[in-house]
C-alpha cells in the first residue's frame, strides 16, 4: 500500500496517468514486475493488470451498477450476455472484498461511496493486480472512509498492490505502508509510513522555502472607502442536482482594500463557491452581498452592476471569446456602458479606442486588435482579461488561478496589478492553488475543505504549514494519531 502525497500541481496525477497508459512519459520507463513496459493506452494497462480509479469516475450514469461492472468484459452465453453469470461474478467479488452493492440501481442513483466501490470492484473484475486510486477519500464522509480503508486493507492483505494519491495525511499515515512525497514534479523522498508523521510530511510537501516576502506587507492597504465590506457571503449552502452537498454554511467576508486568499485542495468546493458568488449558480441557502447591497437574487449582469469583477480560472472557456477579436473581447461587458455605447449603438471608433487603451495600459502584446484572442499567449490573454475587468472599476474582484499557464514576468505583472487594486480600496478574493502566490499577496488566507470553511490563517506572510495542515485535515472518524 503505497501513498503518494504532494500539493496541488506537484505532479501526482500526471505520474499516475502515465502508470495507467493515459499519458506517455517523455523520459524514463515504467517497470512492471521487474520488466519495463511501454503502455500505449488504458486498454493496454488493463491487459497487464493495472487498473485506475480516477477522481472523476468512469462510470456511465444511465446504466446500472451491474452493467457498468461488466462493460467491456461481459460474460457471454450463446451470443447473449449471461446476466446470471455476471451477477454471480458480482456477488463473488463483493464477498471477496467484503463490499456489497445494489447491483440493479442505475449508477446515477447510487451514492458516491457506492460508485467508488463499484469502480474498485470493476478493477478486480478485470483482474487488476495493481490498483491506482486518485484521491479516493476526497468525496467520502467519515464513516465511508472507514469502510473504504477496510476494503483496501483487505485487498492489500490478499496480495494486491495499491497506490493511492491523497491529501488526507491522517489517513495516509493510518493506511499506507510507504509514502512518497512529490514536489514540483520531483520525488522528494520515499519513506516508510511508520517513520513519518504529519509535520514531517507537510514540511516535505511544502518544502523548505525561504520565508515568503509578503508583498502585501510592503504596500499599505488603503483605508476603507466605505464601511460596507466588498463582499459578504453568509451561510452559503449549495446542494447540487444529484443531492450532494457542495457548500456547507460558508461565511466569507472581504473588506475593501483587502486581499483574501482562498486555499483548498482542488475539488473541495472552490468552484462552486465562485459560481455562487459570481451569480452563475443559485445557492440553495444563504445570501451574498456586494458593496453592502444584497445581490443574492441578482444575475451575473446585476452583480456586475453592483461592482463585481470576475476573472475566471477557465481562461479560454469563460474568460475570453477565443474566436473573437481582441477588440471585441476588450469591450465585452462594457458594450452597453456610456464609454462605448449610446442608445444601444456602439459609438463609432469607441471599441477600438477603449480596446487600444486597455491594450496599452496593460501591455497586451498583440499584432493587431483584430487578431483572434485565442492566438495570444497565456500571459497576454490574462492581461487582456484583467484590463477588461478592471476597466469597469469593480469594488470586488474575484480572481481564480490568475497565473496558471502564465510566464514568470506575466505573473509578476498580475501580482502587481492585484496589489495596486488593494491599494485603491478594492476588495479582492484570490483563489489559487499556488500556495506561494497566496502567501505573497494575501492579507489572510481562508481554507476551504469539504465544502466548508476549515479555518483561517492570518497574514501577512501566512504560515504555509498551517495552511497546508488545514487543507489536509480530514474531517474523518479516524482518531488523531497520538
Amino acid at each position, binding site marked *: 500500500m503505497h501513498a503518494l502525497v504532494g500539493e496541488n500541481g506537484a505532479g501526482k496525477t500526471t505520474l499516475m496517468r502515465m502508470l495507467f497508459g493515459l499519458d506517455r512519459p517523455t523520459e524514463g520507463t515504467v517497470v512492471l514486475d521487474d520488466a519495463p513496459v511501454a503502455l500505449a493506452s*488504458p486498454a493496454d494497462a488493463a491487459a497487464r493488470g493495472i487498473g485506475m480509479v480516477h477522481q472523476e469516475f468512469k462510470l456511465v450514469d444511465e446504466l446500472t451498477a451491474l*452493467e457498468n461492472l461488466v*462493460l467491456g468484459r461481459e460474460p457471454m452465453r450463446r451470443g447473449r450476455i449471461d446476466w446470471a453469470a455476471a451477477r454471480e461474478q458480482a456477488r463473488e467479488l463483493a464477498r471477496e472484498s467484503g463490499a456489497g452493492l445494489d447491483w440493479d440501481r442505475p449508477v446515477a442513483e447510487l451514492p458516491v461511496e457506492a460508485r467508488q466501490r463499484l469502480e474498485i470492484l470493476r478493477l478486480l473484475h478485470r483482474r487488476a493486480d495493481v490498483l491506482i486510486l486518485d484521491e479516493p477519500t476526497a468525496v467520502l464522509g467519515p464513516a465511508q472512509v472507514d469502510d473504504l480503508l477496510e476494503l483496501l486493507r483487505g485487498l492489500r492483505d490478499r496480495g494486491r498492490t495499491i497506490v493511492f494519491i491523497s491529501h488526507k495525511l491522517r489517513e495516509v499515515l493510518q493506511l499506507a505502508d510507504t509514502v512518497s512525497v512529490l514536489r514540483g514534479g520531483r520525488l522528494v523522498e520515499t519513506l516508510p509510513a511508520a517513520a513519518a508523521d504529519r509535520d514531517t510530511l507537510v514540511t516535505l510537501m511544502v518544502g523548505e522555502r525561504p520565508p515568503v516576502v509578503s508583498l502585501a506587507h510592503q504596500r499599505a492597504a488603503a483605508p476603507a472607502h466605505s464601511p460596507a465590506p466588498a463582499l459578504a457571503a453568509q451561510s452559503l449552502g449549495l446542494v447540487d442536482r444529484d443531492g450532494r452537498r457542495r457548500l456547507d454554511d460558508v461565511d466569507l467576508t472581504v473588506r475593501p482594500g483587502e486581499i483574501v486568499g482562498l486555499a483548498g485542495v482542488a475539488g473541495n468546493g472552490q468552484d462552486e463557491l465562485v459560481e455562487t458568488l459570481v451569480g452563475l449558480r443559485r445557492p440553495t441557502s444563504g445570501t451574498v452581498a456586494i458593496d453592502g447591497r444584497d445581490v443574492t437574487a441578482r444575475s451575473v449582469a446585476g452583480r456586475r452592476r453592483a461592482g463585481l469583477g470576475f476573472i475566471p480560472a477557465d481562461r479560454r472557456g469563460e474568460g475570453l471569446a477565443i474566436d473573437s477579436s481582441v477588440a471585441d473581447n476588450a469591450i465585452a461587458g462594457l458594450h452597453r456602458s456610456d464609454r462605448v455605447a449610446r442608445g444601444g449603438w456602439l459609438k463609432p471608433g469607441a471599441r477600438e479606442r477603449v480596446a487600444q487603451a486597455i491594450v496599452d495600459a496593460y501591455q497586451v502584446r498583440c499584432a493587431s486588435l483584430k487578431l483572434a484572442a485565442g492566438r495570444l499567449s497565456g500571459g497576454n490573454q490574462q492581461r487582456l482579461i484583467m484590463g477588461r475587468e478592471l476597466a469597469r472599476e469593480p469594488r470586488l474582484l474575484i480572481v481564480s488561478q490568475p497565473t496558471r499557464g502564465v510566464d514568470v514576468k506575466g505573473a509578476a505583472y498580475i501580482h502587481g496589478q492585484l496589489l495596486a487594486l488593494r491599494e485603491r480600496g478594492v476588495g479582492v478574493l484570490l483563489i489559487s492553488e499556488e500556495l506561494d502566490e497566496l502567501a505573497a499577496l494575501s492579507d489572510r488566507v481562508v481554507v476551504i475543505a469539504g465544502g466548508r470553511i476549515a479555518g483561517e490563517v492570518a497574514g501577512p506572510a501566512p504560515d504555509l504549514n498551517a495552511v497546508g495542515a488545514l487543507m489536509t485535515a480530514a474531517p474523518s472518524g479516524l482518531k488523531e494519531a497520538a
Partner: protein
Amino acid sequence: MNQILSSAALAATPLILAAMGGLINRRGGIVNIALEGKMLLGAVFAVLVSASTGSWVLGMVAAGVAGLVGGAVFTFCVTRLGANEILAGLGFNTLAAGLIGYALKDRGTYDPSGISVPPQLHLPLIADIPVLGPIVSDKDPVTYLTWLLVPLLAWALVRTRAGLRLRAAGASQDVAHALGLRGLAIRDASTLVAGLLAGLGGGQLALALVGLFNTGMVAGRGFIAMAAFYFGRARPLPTAIGCALFALFDAIQIRLQQDGVPTQLVSTIPYLVVVGVLAFAALSARRPAKEATA
C-alpha cells in the same frame, strides 16, 4: 371507429420502424434528422424493385438496402467530415428528395404496373374481438414483424453485448474510450441500422399503405418519428406508443377529411400534437427539479 383503429395500426408501422432506427442512433449518441430522406429512399426503391421483380419481399429488401446506403453516406459526413448532424441531416433530406425527383423526371408520382404489395393477413378468430380485432388483424407481415421488433429491441438493448455497448458509448464517449470500446465503430453501426430501419419504414409506407410512390408521401413522418423517440426518451416501448398515438391522430384526421372537415386544417393536427407532447414532456421534466431545490 373500427376502421380508424385499423388504419391507425397500419399507419403506425412506418413511424415505428423509423423511430426504432432513430432511437438506436440516439442511444449511440447521434441525432438523426435525416430519417425523412432515408424513408423516401426506401419508399422509392421498394416500389421500383417490387414492380420490376414482382416480389414485394425483394422490394422491402431493396428498401432496407437503400436506407442502409443512405445511412452510410450520412455517418461518413457526420463522423469523418465533421458535419453538424442537424444541418447535414437537413441537407441530406433535400439531397435525397432531389435525387429521387430527378430520377422521376418531375413526374411526382411513380405508379408502375405490376407492383407487388404485401398481403394482408386475416386472423380469423382474433378479428372478431371487439377493439383488439381491427387493430391486430388484417395487417401485412411487415407490420407484424415490426410489432415483434419493438420488444425485441427493448430486450436487445439490455441483454446483448451490442446493446450494452451501444448505450454506454452513446451516453459517454469518454468512458467508452477509457474502457477500450470502439466508439467510432459503434456510432457508425448505429447510424447504419437507423438508415436500414428508416428505409424499411419507407418501403412499408409505399407498398403496404399507399401502393405507389409519390414525392410528397413521407410528409414529415421522419420528423414525427424523431419527435417520438424524443418523447419516449429513446426507450422502445414508450416510443412505439408515441408513434401509435400520432398514427391515431393521423387516421382521425383522414377520417375527418372524409367527413368534410377541411383537409388542410385537420392535416396539421398530428404536427400540433407533436409540439404539444414535447412541451408537456418538458414541463413534467421540470417539476421534479423544482421540487428538489425547494
